[in-house]
């Protein structure tokens, strides 16, 4: 079996070398590919590169379809143009462009980023349409559809010619690329990946969903403004219509075509978006390229035909789209008239056939050819620390109630948890246990009653506020950060400390061997332990475990019991929902029993077990009451 050539290089190092070579090549290109036209195309590519790296922050990293980038690009361009008209110097004009995009971008982000999916796409689309209207109609400032002309100021004392300006754009592209990469590989970037998988978990663990989304969007907007500024200085003439829906579609599709969540992908997309209109004018070259693409899309079909399967939609559709593009490129009267249609066909083939884009396809091909040296695992340190001295009660809940429609899910519950205590919360399915934890952790706002966590009262209905008060929780239905590794999952949850501390938390739950494994590839039991480690990494003053043993194997349950004992020994009080009665009996200092939203019993495990109300609750709710089996099906509590 061919396992690839070992270059003895780390992947990051290899990427850096190739990137620097690329930029040196791009810088030297005007010497070989001469002429004003070529230089114009290259400059446009660099500007689009900055713009698409910005767009990738939302479309790729946040996973939200952002249709406002073209408008922000336009606002940046107009900001710069107006600043130049007012006599601003070159650097000031650039800053004006960034601000002109950043401020409206922030104004849009705050309401829009509370939304998801189609609603988010729609609000950005509205913003974009609105911006173009404003640019068109504010004729006294922008001259509306007539357009705005400016003369490029000189950079300090140097009057930049076209080549000089191209190099400047390259420098800006390089910097944007580099900073984006640093930013998105940092803890900030990990948090963004995490919140894409589970916004509820990122809030509950105090990472802050909205804050990170807004920052990512703001970064994207700033880059749009910067690109817009360069665009204005490059062309010297602006018209609102140029920043409308057509450009937006091109940009969006450029990012997807190049490959999301990759600066290389954004750059590849920019190259395609800048060069494609040019390619369309050269018919022979264009048909050759399309034929080549068409042949490439046939490979997956042949592969499934060889294994005697009917090609799936995913394999057949790109070939059909490319064939249609080929027919158009050969037979249409005027290929440029069909520009949008051909672009649509390409993109259709790319989105369906290459979900990770060009960059993704190239990277996975390279991974097959070349073996990279993995980063060494960081040393293990950290773990439990002696608990800080805290005088207030970990949890004090007074007369808490919450209804959903007519159902009183939690009804007038008063409950305390003491220092160094494990409180078990049990009850039949649907008795309100999970709702109780959801209230304490801030997922729901209570209808009435108060919650005090370690002496502070968090804002009702705010996961973040409960988390900063010291609450941490796990989820009955797992909420893993599927795109992250185990180590990264811990890293994003830590308020302080680095990789070694994160390794320490993995050792606490005996997962340090699997630090590099992606959560999407981990087993169910491991993920349950990882959720506990995640919660511990926030150094909670109250840990809430929602059915941690559900669906676990016998040996795993034994491991879990040991773990919970060691957490208690480290001084972290625990609220434990559990259906395994033996686990509850073994671990809990006191047990609270809920039924129909009410607290019906509170005492030691033995006391509760012989309480007639408790026996009745279980008998009435479940035939198999003597050994209440764990049930893995989701239940609405």
């Amino acid at each position, binding site marked *: 079996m061919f396992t690839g050539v070992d270059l003895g290089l780390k992947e990051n190092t290899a990427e850096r070398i190739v990137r620097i070579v690329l930029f040196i090549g791009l810088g030297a290109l005007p010497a070989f590919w001469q002429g004003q036209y070529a230089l114009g195309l290259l400059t446009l590519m660099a500007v689009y590169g900055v713009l698409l790296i910005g767009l990738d922050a939302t479309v790729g990293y946040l996973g939200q379809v952002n249709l406002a980038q073209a408008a922000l690009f336009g606002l940046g361009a107009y900001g710069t143009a107006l600043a130049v008209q007012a006599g601003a110097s070159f650097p000031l004009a650039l800053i004006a462009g960034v601000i002109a995009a950043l401020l409206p971008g922030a104004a849009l982000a705050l309401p829009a980023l509370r939304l998801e999916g189609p609603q988010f796409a729609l609000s950005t689309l509205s913003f974009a349409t609105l911006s173009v209207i404003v640019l068109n109609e504010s004729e006294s400032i922008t001259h509306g559809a007539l357009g705005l002309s400016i003369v490029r100021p000189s950079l300090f004392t140097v009057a930049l010619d076209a080549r000089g300006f191209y190099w400047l754009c390259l420098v800006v592209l390089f910097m944007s690329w580099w900073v984006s990469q640093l930013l998105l590989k940092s803890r900030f970037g990990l948090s963004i990946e995490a919140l894409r998988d589970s916004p509820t978990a990122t809030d509950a663990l105090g990472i802050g969903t909205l804050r990170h989304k807004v920052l990512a969007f703001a970064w994207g907007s700033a880059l749009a403004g910067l690109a817009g500024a360069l665009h204005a200085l490059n062309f010297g003439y602006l018209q609102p219509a140029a920043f409308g829906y057509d450009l937006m579609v091109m940009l969006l599709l450029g990012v997807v075509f190049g490959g999301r969540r990759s600066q290389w992908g954004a750059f590849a997309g920019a190259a395609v978006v800048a060069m494609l209109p040019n390619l369309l004018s050269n018919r022979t070259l264009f048909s050759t390229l399309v034929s080549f693409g068409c042949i490439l899309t046939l490979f997956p079909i042949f592969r499934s035909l060889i294994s005697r399967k009917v090609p799936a939609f995913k394999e057949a559709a790109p070939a059909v789209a490319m064939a249609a593009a080929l027919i158009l490129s050969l037979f249409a009267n005027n290929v440029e008239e069909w520009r949008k249609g051909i672009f649509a066909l390409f993109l*259709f083939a790319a989105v369906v056939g290459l979900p990770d884009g060009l960059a993704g396809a190239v990277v996975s091909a390279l991974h097959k050819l070349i073996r990279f040296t993995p980063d060494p695992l960081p040393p293990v340190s950290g773990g439990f620390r002696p608990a800080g001295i805290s005088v207030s009660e970990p949890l004090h809940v007074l007369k808490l109630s919450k209804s959903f429609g007519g159902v009183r899910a939690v009804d007038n519950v008063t409950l305390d948890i003491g220092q160094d205590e494990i409180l078990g919360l049990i009850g039949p399915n649907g008795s309100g246990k999970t709702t109780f934890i959801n209230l304490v952790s801030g997922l729901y706002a209570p209808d009435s009653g108060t919650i005090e966590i370690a002496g502070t009262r968090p804002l009702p209905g705010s996961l973040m506020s409960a988390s900063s008060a010291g609450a941490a929780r796990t989820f009955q239905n797992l909420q893993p950060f599927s795109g992250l590794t185990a180590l990264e999952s811990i890293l994003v949850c830590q308020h302080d400390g680095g990789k070694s501390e994160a390794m320490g938390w993995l050792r606490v739950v005996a997962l340090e061997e699997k630090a590099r494994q992606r959560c999407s590839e981990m087993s169910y039991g491991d993920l349950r332990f990882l959720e506990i480690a995640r919660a511990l990494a926030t150094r909670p003053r109250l840990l809430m475990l929602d059915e941690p043993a559900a669906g676990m194997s016998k040996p795993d349950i034994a491991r879990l019991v040991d773990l919970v004992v060691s957490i208690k020994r480290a001084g972290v009080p625990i609220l434990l929902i559990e259906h395994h009665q033996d686990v509850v009996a073994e671990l809990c200092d006191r047990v609270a029993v809920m039924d129909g939203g009410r607290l019906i019993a509170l005492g030691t495990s033995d006391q509760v077990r012989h309480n007639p109300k408790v026996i009745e609750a279980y008998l009435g709710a479940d035939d198999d009451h003597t050994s209440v089996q764990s049930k893995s099906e989701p239940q609405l509590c």
Partner: protein
Amino acid sequence: MDAKYIALAQMAVGGGLMGMAYALVAYGFQLTYAAGKAVNFGQGELVMLGAFTGISLAGSGLPYGVSVLGAMVAGAALGWFVERVAVRLALKQHNEGWILLTIIVGLFALSFVENIWGRDDRPFPVPWPAAPLDFYGISVTWPELAIAMGALGIMIFVELAKRYTMAGIAVQAVSADPEAAELCGVRSSSAISLSWAVSGAAAAFAGTVIGPVTTVGPTMAAALTLKAFSVAVVAGLDSGFGLVIAGIALGAAENLSGYVLGSGWREAPGLLLLILALALRPQGIFGKKIIRKV
């Protein structure tokens, strides 16, 4: 009454009647959203294709009613096609790829229309009388009335079909819970396809009634998608007839702001309101609040 107020009322009524068309397209969004939690970002292109198909059929000498029916059949086929090529796979993979793919299919449709029918606006011929009706000084044209009647008629017809036919009940079952519906023997992919076909037919019909009022051209598509989507979101993607109210309100607001602020600003207040509505009540004014479950 003051002439100025009459002019304003005239604007509001004309806009409100046009708004019924937005409501109808928005209704198409509701249908597909209920069935498969996806909408067509190229719905405006379907409206446009429906209108052009209607024009070509009428131009070939077919009677008006048959042309409209033909456009609806074409719209249904296109709606089905969009679901099959752009939505099904992405939804199976639980990603947002369908937003991109429906935009892409719409883009192709736009290019197709530009090259087959040309870039110029065309009138849509109708058999209605040319003279407008007069209600207390406010005039209403027959094509405008046709929008209101047609939109309401189609919505009522589909709502009845959803409640009283087996296919309609199956679609409702799938929108409530696709897996449970499958276990009861409903093929959820067929139910979703059916919703998309009906949604496409509604969009094409909207094209045939909007066309006589505005004229038909490739530029009508993008704006229509946005307006109809606004109506659907403001009303709530899952609320039945809130659409009609939201549609009328948007249409009237648009005409009034065009009259008061200048024609370039027509769409601005609606868009601003949309962003605000989304920020304050993401589930829509008439929609139900979503409870997060973990």
